[in-house]
């Protein structure tokens, strides 16, 4: 009997998710032992044509990381959906857009302006990427760059979500163990739509810092001076996203004295991460004077980035207009 097939693919992403999978150490051998890897650009050599040639539903498990930024991303998302029994939105980009989705606040032209004509770019002829370009060797084709970034589940149906930027390796390993067990007929797969490799509460659940009733009179950032190592960062005025962010990472950032930035996304059942975090933070600002409240809020220099750093595409807002 041939081995079940596995693929991993990247859309608009940084590659960190792939590294996180490789970082599961010796368990990667079990992956290789259990599966035939048919596509994984970062690890094995395969061609799109090979995947296209497979019968529909032939791949057992696909981990798709990265958002849908361009035509190629979408094409591959649809292709892999068709070919896969289980499609996992792997990591923050695929499940909620992540940092690349902050570009959704700007029109495509603004983005090109920044990238191809910004102060860090040498481009005296003002060249821009063309979808089609005639060169002596023939016509070249670049995938169309979409106006906004979409999450994987905005484009195709997704079976599971594994959150994180990137997902923690021990969590990936635990999910793979469940898959291995299911393939051996020893376990049931979780219900479709589940979030895997994470908890259902928030980072505070795993954070050992001492917590009290919160009253914020001023925001500060960690570069403004050392934070108390024992006390809840938010209570110290550091905008920690832990209260709104799904647990599973082990509260790594707050343990290291840095604010949680929210990479594990919303906790179970929350529809809009940024709105949740914003209304929570706004609730504990300790002032009734509108002017003072304004002053306190000025301590958050980049609200979109602070509240929607990982979640803009997956939020109710999805994009600017």
């Amino acid at each position, binding site marked *: 009997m041939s081995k079940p097939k596995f693929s991993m693919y990247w859309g608009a992403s940084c590659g960190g998710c792939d590294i996180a999978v490789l970082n599961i150490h010796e368990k990667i051998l079990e992956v290789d032992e259990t599966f035939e890897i048919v596509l994984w650009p970062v690890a094995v050599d395969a061609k799109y044509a090979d995947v296209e040639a497979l019968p529909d539903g032939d791949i057992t498990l696909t981990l798709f990381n990265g958002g849908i930024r361009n035509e190629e991303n979408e094409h591959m998302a*649809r292709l892999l*959906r*068709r070919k896969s029994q289980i499609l996992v939105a792997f990591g923050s980009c695929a499940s909620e857009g992540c940092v690349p989705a902050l570009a959704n606040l700007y029109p495509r032209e603004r983005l090109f302006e920044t990238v191809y004509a910004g102060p860090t770019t040498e481009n005296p002829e003002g060249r821009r990427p063309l979808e089609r370009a005639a060169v002596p060797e023939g016509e070249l084709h670049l995938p169309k760059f979409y106006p906004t970034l979409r999450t994987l589940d*905005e*484009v*195709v*149906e997704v079976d599971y979500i594994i959150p994180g930027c990137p997902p923690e390796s021990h969590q990936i390993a635990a999910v793979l163990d469940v898959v291995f067990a299911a393939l051996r007929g020893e376990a049931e797969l979780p219900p479709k739509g589940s979030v895997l490799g994470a908890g*259902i*509460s*928030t*980072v*505070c*659940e795993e954070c050992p810092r001492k*917590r*009290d*009733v*919160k*009253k914020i009179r001023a925001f500060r950032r960690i570069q403004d001076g050392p934070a108390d190592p024992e006390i*809840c960062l*938010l209570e110290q005025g550091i905008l920690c996203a*832990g*209260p*709104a962010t799904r*647990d599973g990472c082990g509260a790594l950032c707050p343990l290291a004295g840095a604010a949680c930035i929210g990479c594990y996304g*919303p*906790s*179970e*059942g*929350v*529809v809009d991460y940024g709105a*949740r*975090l914003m*209304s*929570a933070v706004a*609730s*504990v600002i300790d002032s009734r004077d509108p002017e003072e409240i304004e002053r306190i809020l000025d301590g958050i220099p980049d609200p979109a980035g602070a509240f929607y750093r990982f979640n803009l595409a997956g939020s109710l807002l999805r994009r600017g207009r």
Partner: protein
Amino acid sequence: MSAVNSDSPRIGVYVCHCGSNIAHMVDVEEVRAWAEKTLQSEGVVVARDYKFMCSSLGQELIQKDIQELGLNRVVVAACSPHLHEKTFRAACEKAGLNGYLCELVSIREHASWVHTDREAATEKSKMIVAGGVKRVRYDEPLDPLRVPIHKRTLVVGGGIAGIQAALEIANAGYPVYLVEREASIGGHMAQFDKTFPTLDCAACILTPKMVDAGEHPNITLLTWSEVARVEGSLGNFQVTIRKKARYVDEDLCTGCGICTEKCPKKVLDTVFEAGLGYRKAIYTPFPQSVPKYPVIDTENCTYFVKGKCKACQIFCPTGAIDFEQQDEEITVEVGNIILATGFQTFDPRRIPQYGYGRLANVFTSLEFERMSNAAGPTGGEIVLRDGKTRPESVAIVHCVGSRDRRYNNYCSAICCMQSLKFAHLVKERTGAEVYNFYIDMRTAYKDYDEFYQRVLSEGANMVRGKVAEITDAARLPGEEGKLIVQVEDTLAGRQRRIPVDMVILSVGLEPQRDAYETAKLFGISCSANGWYTEKHPKLDPVATMTEGIFIAGACQGPKDIPTSVAQGAAAAARVLGHIQVGEMSMEPIRASVDEARCSGCRICNGLCPFNAISFHDDRRVTEINPALCQGCGTCVAACPAGAISGTGFSDAQVLAQIEGLLWDVRETVERRP
């Protein structure tokens, strides 16, 4: 998201004309037809419109459909849920459908009343209906909460409204705590001389009631006390009352008054005597004070300021003076609360051109009340500020601070009658020439206009016009040494300058300076002007939106003594109703915490206005006490983990309603395989 209740929804939509209230601006028939056709996909099986859905015929329409068509959800598009939510829930219950599976959406307040474009209002109404239909799919059957009603009642404010309320309840046989922040009950009425229109002596009719309240076995009088905290809800409030130190032991004091007599320190009395007279540093506000025990004003007491004197202690025959006494907090449990916290008067210094505080012989109405009171600082003599000269001419200015866009827009209700009373008293006591300056003469209610006629027949001059200025700068012969009232006489159609010896400013009524804080303390709301908001302006004038908290008297808006008394009695009747029933049903709208999802972040811990949230340090989770929770939703909105949900306001319900409201602009996410 899928509907919580998996049985396929069979929804009935009922669109109300509300006579012409809705129908004149919304094409009700079109909304009905649209809902029946377009919302079929959402489970709508029938849509009807009717002239008055709230009528028994309208309700029967719904009931018949529930029974014959097997409806399991109902949406009524009519007025605000404040008005008829209960009506339609009850109608559904009668037909065997849980009342909480019925949504009332407002196309009157939210559409017809606020728009002038019929087409747009009709389109908006469709969206509102769609929101209700989308939402109702997620509604779950709920049962009202039953709460037992504690038999004790708290009345806050010992003016005439509060006294009346306390007496009514006490006379019915139930215990009352009557809290008053001044040293005696009696309120403003105790300061007055005569009362309009009958000219009864205020003290003669008030003091027997004060004594009744003071001696009533069912009334616990807590004067010189203020409410510090309120916890709990209808049926079971825990109220913490701060009893300010009197420095007089009430168990020993006989009220003989020797301490006051011997006290060497005279203090200008800006409260009871309105700044016109003096009191001692140890004092009762007035001779008939209830209770009789004096208080020491520590800011002025020589002992408290300089550390020596103790005259009161030395002369007290029962050793009742206790300089070591401390403020004390007591907590009482009550089932209902009546707020009768009254009003304050407008400060006429805010109208500098009227000269109050600058021109000696410009008086406020409250000063005049004290002056004309036989027990007041002048012994009832109407005299100028020098304390001896009788005025030969007196101007009485109505509407000072009232009906004026710069100060208070509203009519203070009592000033016309009060000013006519002053005119009568001045005439009677001094024979002076009297001029009343009024904008409009408002003498509604029983025997009021008759009193106006009487004052007219007594020869008071009525000048219709708003006074521009009161000055002592004489310009014309005969003005020297006088106050000149500059006014446009709108009936004569000319400017007039009227020289007088004395001016009385009939100042308007304003909410107490701390009305907003008090409202917050008790969890009720204020109007933009600061008056407490009643549950319904016509049909529920003494209840508030907070169950178990009632309002009476001028704290709800300017009103005269008869109306205040009526409201005090009305509030008492409402409370007695609660006590008699013994148990009330309450909306089952409560917040609850999913402990598995609560990370114990403590964001919500300081937010609950009803102190229903507690934190369990051992388990690191937050818990909400359903007996204290009022379902306001503050914590639900604040919980960053989404671990707190509000019954009847789940994310699914709210988002579905929003989706419905955005029906005409919705985009579906396209997922091609």
